[in-house]
């Protein structure tokens, strides 16, 4: 089972974990991305996330299906938030449930790493003296 969401609403960590819980799964691996207060020593005030919504959902679905094909995992949840996020807030949650932990760890890692490479979502870091689209320039 796969649950993909792209939303402006705050992500609910415990609800996400509840969704992947299953009596046939002995391991749940969760990745929670949070807004850090600094980049290269420079204070970050907030982040702004923008997505190409329908393509982002499609790419997220693809990643989940690829993970399901590669590892024996039962449930995959992938939620990403858009809009303005303050320090400490959660832009992304990935939760993977599998019978055994190795598959859950490996799939979770694969999903976040691939998401960062292919899903059309962009974040802008807002500093006191300016703002930068992350990864835009070499």
């Amino acid at each position, binding site marked *: 089972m796969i649950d993909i969401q792209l939303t402006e609403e705050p992500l609910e960590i415990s609800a996400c974990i509840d969704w992947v819980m299953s009596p046939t799964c002995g391991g749940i691996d969760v990745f929670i991305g949070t807004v850090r207060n600094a980049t290269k020593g420079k204070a970050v005030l907030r982040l702004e996330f923008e997505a190409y919504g329908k393509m982002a959902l499609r790419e997220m679905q693809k990643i989940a299906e690829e993970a399901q094909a590669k590892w024996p995992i039962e449930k995959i949840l992938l939620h990403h938030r858009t809009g303005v996020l303050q320090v400490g807030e959660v832009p992304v949650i990935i939760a993977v449930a599998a019978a055994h932990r190795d598959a859950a760890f490996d799939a979770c890692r694969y999903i976040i790493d691939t998401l960062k490479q292919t899903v*059309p979502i962009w974040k802008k870091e807002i500093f006191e003296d300016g703002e930068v689209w*992350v990864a*835009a320039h*070499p």
Partner: protein
Amino acid sequence: MKVNVLAFGIAKDIFGASSTEVGLAGEATVEALRTALETQYPRLKQLASFMIAVNDEYAAAGQVLTPEDEVAIIPPVSGG
């Protein structure tokens, strides 16, 4: 052919709008669109890279565009 190109992230800042229109004289390939965009908006060349998406899929350079396609420029992504 005229192509309407949707923009996100830094591409939106470079276009100064959430979309732009580009005219293609010859065969309307993704590669031709890329060249036309770079000519019209030289700042695109300063990006680490950019991709073109056609109908919600990353498109190869040789793909030919049709007037019905939804086309978008995808600057380097940074989700997560």
